């Protein structure tokens, strides 16, 4: 291939000691790409999986598994469009399976209560914090009461996924995504105002 000569810079970068230790680990281009996407999506995915009822630990495991599957998906030369939607779809499927197996709904409620308490204790302005905390509590109560599909669409949208990415993740049409979001936002709006 033209223009792929090994430059003098590259030669200088060559490790002079044989074989590379763990700290000098190098990665192939597909590995780098998957790690970059992992960094971009991991926090949002974890928040989503926690809303679905998983513990942070279980959520973390599912995310890692999802991205390893993504790597294998890309290695097999599968389509590369809409990878964000693909990752959310795989993570959601794994999460629902896990949730069904563990029946963690009760733990979710306890988790949310504990978070709100922790947060209230840290705030320097107790009055403002109380208001924030109450509003967040109302929002969470509404989200918890939503059907899983509406929860998922709402959280994915809040995490910045585009409508077509959500549609891919959920296996539904763009119109169904919009209708789901409209329902959820109407309920959230009423709760926030109440």
């Amino acid at each position, binding site marked *: *291939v*033209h223009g*792929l000569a*090994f430059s*003098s810079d*590259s*030669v200088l*970068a*060559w*490790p002079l000691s*044989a*074989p590379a230790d763990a700290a000098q680990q*190098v*990665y*192939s*281009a*597909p*590995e*780098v790409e*998957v*790690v970059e996407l992992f*960094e971009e999506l*991991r*926090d949002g995915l974890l*928040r989503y999986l*926690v*809303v679905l009822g998983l513990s*942070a630990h279980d959520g*973390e495991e599912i*995310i*890692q598994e999802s*991205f*390893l599957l993504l*790597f294998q998906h890309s*290695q097999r*030369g*599968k389509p590369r469009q809409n990878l964000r939607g693909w990752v959310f779809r795989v993570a959601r499927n794994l999460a629902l399976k896990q949730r069904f197996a563990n029946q963690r709904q009760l733990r979710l409620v306890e*988790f949310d209560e504990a*978070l*709100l308490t922790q947060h209230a204790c840290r705030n320097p302005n107790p009055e403002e914090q109380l208001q924030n905390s109450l*509003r*967040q509590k109302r929002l*969470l109560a509404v*989200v918890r009461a939503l059907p899983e599909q509406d929860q998922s669409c*709402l*959280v994915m*949208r809040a*995490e910045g996924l585009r*409508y077509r990415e959500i549609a891919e993740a959920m296996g539904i049409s*763009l*119109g169904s995504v*919009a*209708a789901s*979001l*409209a329902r959820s*936002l*109407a309920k*959230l*709006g009423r709760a*926030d105002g109440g």
Partner: protein
Amino acid sequence: MRNDDLHVADEQLLLYASGELSASSTAHIRAHLERCSQCSDRLEELERTLAEFAGAQVEIHAEKLPPMAGARAQFQARLTELASQDRERDHHEVSASGSVHSAWVALVGHRQTAVLALVAVAACLLLAVRLHGPGEQIHPPVASLAHWDEPDQRLTPGATLPLTRSQVCGAAEAQLIPAVPVSLKRKVFEEYGVTPPRPDAYEVDYLITPELGGATDIRNLWPEPYQDTVWNAHVKDQLEDRLHRMVCHGDVDLATAQHDISADWIAAYRKYFHTESPLSVTSSTDSSDDFSESRQSPPVT
């Protein structure tokens, strides 16, 4: 038929705001919003509610999220392990298929027949392993045993992207040929056991060039000598140019070109240039648009 006096449903407002509607629907709703404060207020309210929920999500979970650094490190370790398992499996599959005959496989065969040459071969192998330390070495370095005018098929069977002929032929050359990251080049050299200062004598070349849909993947890269052999990197460039043009002219289909160049690029060169020896590199690259001329050039001796 549309009634412009009807208010816009919430889902239509959301689709409009996200840019998912057709141009005509977008124009219609935009016009409606300009004269209907009720609908524009509603859209604002929907977006505010979503933004508030998004903020609450982040705030509520902020403390509970384990740090990114630990998660990333754990993921990278698992990914590295998976990638090496995949490569190992691929190599085994290729070797087991019997379609590949590398120097190493041939040497193992000799060892099994216990011919006298075994002594010399084993000495070479022991020396090579020793030079590269006591760590586990799945593929013994073959630097001292072979000159890779052709790649070791166990290490470099070729890998492609799912591109069509029109995608391959439509893009400019600069877009098609990504630079190989230094870290990946280093890994290729390690895989082939090339040690300093030798790397400057090689081009880390794509077996299947990106101009034919080849992937920037370690399985599609090998250290190709620039000068030390008749069948060198410059000669292979001629073949890449020729095959790319033939594919784009419809003379060869893309899959055939990918197969031929990855199976045995020297045989492919002979096949597509109708010659037993490489043509003059200089005249070929100078007249890269005219293959009838380069075909008549004297062979390199």
